[in-house]
């Protein structure tokens, strides 16, 4: 898909802007603070109904104005859709599709798919686990908008359950017993939504793995084994061949890995793909899982936040396989919660579940976080974005690529390789402070951005 028009009214620094866009590469050049990123942000807003820079909508509206409007015309194949979004801070955004109002803004989610490359991407590798969880969750939503509801249901149950733990903990410290009669029910619902989210993330990681591997090699210009393993606080299967593994990823598995799990065929329903004959959702495995949870649970109890605790949990948790059924995951979450209940009440925090998981990235068998060089970290961050691009493309939802000021962060060789990798995308929108940052391979339409004015150059 690609955008043919973008028009902004009172969005950020733009009082009014009408931009005609074409497929292929378009570059926006301008010094910092002239409004380049605002363009990218507006496009991102159409795709995700949110900003990648701020959590609430107020900053998106030009100072002194009551509302902002973003209009985008999206062309996919031979069909076009005009999406208009009216952003009114403090109120629900109003959305029109082809001039007709839609009941819920969510209904247009997924019309436009984008993959954003930004300087902040380095945090995918070097930042907190929350960054990597968001990466997975955002990609899940981009592929299947329904996942947004799964995520918000899970978050809601999590908040309620944690509130219950906190008040019970406070009551106990004050000498009372604390009312925990509803905790079992909250556990059940947490496990239900958590298992759905977990199953989707696990399947996604399986699909990403071969693509990250090849994208890394292409960006870094060398075959270094990369690893991408989901580390869960939930323990399911402890069979040794699946346990841990930067090494395992180093074996260079081809695309077949994703295919074998059936996830390629039906990415949104990974839980249904378990093969009972070879799967690991059997009762025996769950039993093993129980003891494992007990062990790691105690190990984590002392210091749930330390790296040591996380690593230990990871050893068992990383083993959760793509073929795991949702039911097995649900049971595993319940078992995990049961094992740490006392600590949870003491600390007023939910310690087991996808909200505490991480994505372990590695290069050459060493954890990327803490060991990878600056260049390796960038190659890996770019590889994650490129893999997202490949995945959406494989879903037949060719995304618009947004490269926001990212070339300035890279050395010349990575710039050139990245340029070559994105050059064949249907549409690539690039921003840069200076012309020289953008490799010649990405020659295309060029705009100059100066104090909120965007003019076609050359």
């Amino acid at each position: 898909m690609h955008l043919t028009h973008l028009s902004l009214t009172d969005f950020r620094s733009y009082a009014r802007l009408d931009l005609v866009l074409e497929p292929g590469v378009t570059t926006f050049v301008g010094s910092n603070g002239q409004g380049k990123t605002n363009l990218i942000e507006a496009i991102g807003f159409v795709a995700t109904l949110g900003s990648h820079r701020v959590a609430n909508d107020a900053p998106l509206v030009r100072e002194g104005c009551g509302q902002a409007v973003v209009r985008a015309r999206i062309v996919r194949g031979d069909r076009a859709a005009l999406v208009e979004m009216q952003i009114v801070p403090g109120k629900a955004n109003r959305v029109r599709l082809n001039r007709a109002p839609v009941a819920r803004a969510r209904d247009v989610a997924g019309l436009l798919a984008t993959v954003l490359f930004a300087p902040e991407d380095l945090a995918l590798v070097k930042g907190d686990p929350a960054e990597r969880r968001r990466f997975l969750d955002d990609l899940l939503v981009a592929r299947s908008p329904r996942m947004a509801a799964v995520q918000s249901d899970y978050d809601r149950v999590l908040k309620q359950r944690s509130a219950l733990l906190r008040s019970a903990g406070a009551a106990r410290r004050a000498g009372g017993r604390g009312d925990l009669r509803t905790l079992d029910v909250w556990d059940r619902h947490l496990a239900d939504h958590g298992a759905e989210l977990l199953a989707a993330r696990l399947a996604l990681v399986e699909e990403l793995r071969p693509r990250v591997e090849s994208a890394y090699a292409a960006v870094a210009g060398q075959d270094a084994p990369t690893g991408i393993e989901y580390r869960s606080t939930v323990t399911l299967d402890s069979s040794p061949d699946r346990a841990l593994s930067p090494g395992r990823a180093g074996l260079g598995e081809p695309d077949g890995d994703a295919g074998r799990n059936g996830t390629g065929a039906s990415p949104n329903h990974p839980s249904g793909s378990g093969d009972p004959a070879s799967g690991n959702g059997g009762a025996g495995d769950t039993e093993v899982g129980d003891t494992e949870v007990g062990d790691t649970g105690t190990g984590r109890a002392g210091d749930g936040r330390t790296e040591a605790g996380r690593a230990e949990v990871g050893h068992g948790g990383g083993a959760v396989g793509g073929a795991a059924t949702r039911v097995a995951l649900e049971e595993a979450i319940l078992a995990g919660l049961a094992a740490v209940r006392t600590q949870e009440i003491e600390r007023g925090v939910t310690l087991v579940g996808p909200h505490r998981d991480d994505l372990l990235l590695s290069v050459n068998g060493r954890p990327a976080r803490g060991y990878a060089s600056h260049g390796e970290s960038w190659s890996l961050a770019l590889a994650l974005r490129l893999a997202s691009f490949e995945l959406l493309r494989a879903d037949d939802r060719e995304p618009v690529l947004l490269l926001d000021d990212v070339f300035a962060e890279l050395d010349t060789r990575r710039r050139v390789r990245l340029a070559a990798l994105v050059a064949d995308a249907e549409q690539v929108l690039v921003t840069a402070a200076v012309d020289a940052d953008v490799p010649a391979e990405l020659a295309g339409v060029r705009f100059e951005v100066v104090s909120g004015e965007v003019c076609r150059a050359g």
Partner: protein
Amino acid sequence: MYEGIVQDVIDELGQLPGIGPKSAQRIAFHLLAADPADVRRLASALTELKEKVRFCRICFNVAQSELCRICSDPRRDPTSICVVEESKDVVAIERTREFRGKYHVLGGAINPIGGVGPDDLHIRELVARLADGTVTEIILATDPNTEGEVTASYLARQIGPMGLTVTRLASGLPMGGDLEWADEVTLGRAFEGRRIVSA
């Protein structure tokens, strides 16, 4: 700011749900211009609301006397109870004319963030109503959101062992709509709750 009484009325109206300062001002001036008899009727209705309306001793629905209209109606089926969060849910279900049993109004849903636990709802009274064995079916009609679902699960656990039929309202597709326009969550739930079509 207006003087004295006018501002008082605006402030009071502005406290009501869904009424902002502009609407409050509009309503205040509407009342000022209205026929005195109309305003007096409104005032007395409001006073009576607090003085005369009570909650049914059995089901906690709003009532004018000790028992609500439904609990005191001998034609209603005493073997079946529909459990709802609020009185307004009773009205909604009554409009369907589908249900001929009785109700039980919980007074909310389990909500730890809001500090609402099982003891803050009329759950104990519900369990007490089931003691004599008259009731054979419980329909859980709490809201289809996180808190409502959890409340339904909790009630099912409390009531389940008593040997009653416990059902939950199906959540599914709106009538008169096209399948393609249903959002994915609703459609997903409708799939979960699908049933066999009798030939």
